[in-house]
């Protein structure tokens, strides 16, 4: 092979690598859902009610359908599907995250707005911040949970660096995580991980059956608005 041909192959290969850089289907990230209330239409119009327990969420086909509430109502899982550009909010960088979820199997498709309120996702100094803001009717209280789900098999929850195994029990295993425990979620595929920052004043629980972290009292109430913010920062650990 002539030297010019070899150079052309290398240049074209480099060019292709450049345009493909950043598309990394193996780079899975935790799915974050922000729940805590549901919207339901009745003959009196729209009501938003508290929810009692995460057990109401019955996984139908997690690879496709998302979760459905006990009564058949679709829940408002935040899967970062909120249309980032329709509202033209500077700083919303959702597609990066979408690309990164590819390795976790087929992503969920529930539209975030289904339970009312609006979602925002931002990247700030490398960390993803997800925020949900809802209007509440008179007297309503949002259930005080944020959930961080680690989807099927590709992500492992770590507490202070030690992996937590998933339990197959039918019951609910829900243990409070001490305040100083460092919560991380690590990808089996890439070794990449995310540090979970707890919202101020919230308590954290580990649910080993649904394999999620639940953050209690994560909502802030301000008049008829409630909001919650969750921050996860990427970090890298050695595979060893």
């Amino acid at each position, binding site marked *: 092979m002539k030297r010019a041909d070899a150079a052309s192959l290398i240049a074209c*290969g480099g*060019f292709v690598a450049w345009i493909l850089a950043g598309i990394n289907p193996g780079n899975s990230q935790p799915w974050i859902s922000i729940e805590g209330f549901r919207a339901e239409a009745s003959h009196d119009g729209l009501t938003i009610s508290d929810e009692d327990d995460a057990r109401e969420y019955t996984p139908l086909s997690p690879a496709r359908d998302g979760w459905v509430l006990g009564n058949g109502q679709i829940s408002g899982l935040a899967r970062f599907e909120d249309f980032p550009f329709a509202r033209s909010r500077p700083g919303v960088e959702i597609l990066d995250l*979408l690309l990164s979820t590819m390795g976790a199997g087929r992503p969920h498709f529930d539209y975030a707005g289904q339970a*009312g309120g609006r979602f925002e996702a931002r990247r700030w100094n490398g960390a993803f911040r997800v925020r949900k803001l809802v209007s509440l009717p008179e007297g309503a209280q949002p259930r005080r949970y944020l959930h961080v789900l680690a989807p099927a098999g590709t992500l492992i929850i770590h507490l202070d660096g030690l992996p937590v195994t998933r339990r197959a029990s039918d019951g609910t295993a829900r243990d409070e995580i001490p305040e100083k425990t460092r919560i991380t979620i690590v990808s089996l595929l890439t070794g990449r991980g995310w540090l979970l920052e707890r919202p101020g004043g919230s308590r954290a629980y580990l649910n080993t059956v649904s394999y999620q972290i639940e953050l209690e009292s994560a909502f802030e109430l301000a008049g008829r608005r409630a909001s919650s913010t969750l921050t996860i920062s990427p970090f890298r650990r050695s595979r060893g």
Partner: protein
Amino acid sequence: MIRAASGAALYYLLPLLAGYGLLSGRGSSLATAWASGSLALLALVGLANVVFGWSAPELRHGFLAVSVTFLAARGLGEIRRRLRDRKGWPRALTLAGAGVLGIALLAQVLLRSDSPYPSFVNWDALQHLTLAREMNRGAFSLDLTRYSDTFQLATYAPVYHAPLFLAWVASGATAEGLYWFLDLLHSLLAALVTFRLGWSIRGKALDALLAGSLGALTLESQIAMTGFSHMPQNLAGMYFAVCAADFLDRKVPPRELTIQLLYLAVAHFFVGGIGVALLGALHIVRALDQKGGLMVGLKVGGVLIVAVSFLLAGYNSAFRMDPFSIGDSAAFNLSADQKNDLFRHWYGYGYYAYGILLAVLAWRTKGVRLRIFCVVTGLLVPAILFPFPYSFKLFALAHFVLAPLVAAALASAFFEGRTRGVQVVNLALLVSAWFSIFAVNQELSLKRWLRFEGVFTLVSQDEMVAARFLDQPRYRDTLLVAEPATQHILEGLSGVNTAGGTYATAATRGQLMDIFSSGSPERVRVSVFAVRDALRQGSHDLRLLAVGPRAAHWMALDADDRLATFENIWTPQRATLGDEARVAFLAGSPGFQLVFKNPALALIEVSRPTTP
């Protein structure tokens, strides 16, 4: 399905045949024939509808059938003559064309695999169907806002709709089936047009192959949807590319150029208008540069474009210039970061590399025509980067221009002078990379949030069934009231009238909020009859109310979003117990009569409330 496929084919064939029929024996190009045919069809529909009016549909249809058939028959003869006299294409070009068609088909299989016939994924098409149906009923105006209040602005003349109406009526296709094939055909033709322009730029089959492949695998998945949706601005963009190829192929006679520019201008006032300016500039610069004296000036112009583009690409979103961001349009003025994100998802992360290769090509090229083309069409780049609300719509033009230019630059950088083996490897590398980007892009930035029960569609089968129920004489003069997205869908698919469809006014939206939040059936009736259509009110005593799960989701939006026309419940929704309860509550109340119900929609006849 056969009717729908033939309807889509007729959409493209009728203007071409009519154009060739009109220009028979004059040796005009395909670009001129398309423009002449489209304008002639618009004139014929206008003449038929103005002369015979609403009252004589048989005469109207008879006149159109005879005149269009006459032109088409002449056109067929002309095409036959041209095919007989044509010189053979180079074998390499034929192979490249087949390759592009194969890649485009593969991309469409991936893109539409979860949109089985007749899923509906073209939101704007619903408006165009309404207009075509109005034409069929005998209406005619060059001003779109006179047909239906779903058109708030006249941003193009109905030159797109005349062949749509004729092809639809002639084929007898369903609305949703027709657009399923129109979108598919549009995607394939878009790839072939970039292939053709790629050939015209340097006359090299490899350029054409690369251009067509990149064109087929680039999906502007938001705002422009160039190679995906059959709509006026995308057709105008495609037509601009055909005219650009004509410019590169020959010296276009002034009479033909006038027809081309006229069609482009009316096909879409914004996209076509910019297209007219660029096409006009191409011809003027070439006319001024008979002796090649402008080469230096063109180099300077190219450098200026690169510099301005660089500055605009880096402008800080904190200092955004929003000169025209008023109301809903502000939602489409993207920040620098957002534009950067979209570019990365459409063209790959290192899309800057294309800019560098293009600048090198423009600088080094010796051909005057090619340099004129690079510099003049290169103006599209700063225009897209400019912080203007709908600047991304210019991808309708840029899609067709950038792919062939990038292809020429890539061919020049990685293929020329290389052995056949290296060329094959490089081609495989590039096409595989583009296909990977396309696969990720179509899933994540187009379909991801538009699926319903595993199907990528904006309209469910149940909603289509409801639309078919509405397509009956009883409701021809009845105003239907529903949440905006449902209005838009049912008006487009069935022909029932609504107050503005998805472009309902703030006053109408206020009434809708009352309707879907009130617990008093009497108040619901009053609000249903308070809704006003800007053009026609229809029946005095009867209205239809459509209640479905989209309404509950629309009510769950923030109040600001409910008033915004860009915020919609885009996908079908599953019905909830709350929806059931609302239908039962209304259907059991005096003045309400449930006439249709399926899992997606309940249609309720509402009689006028008695005035106290």
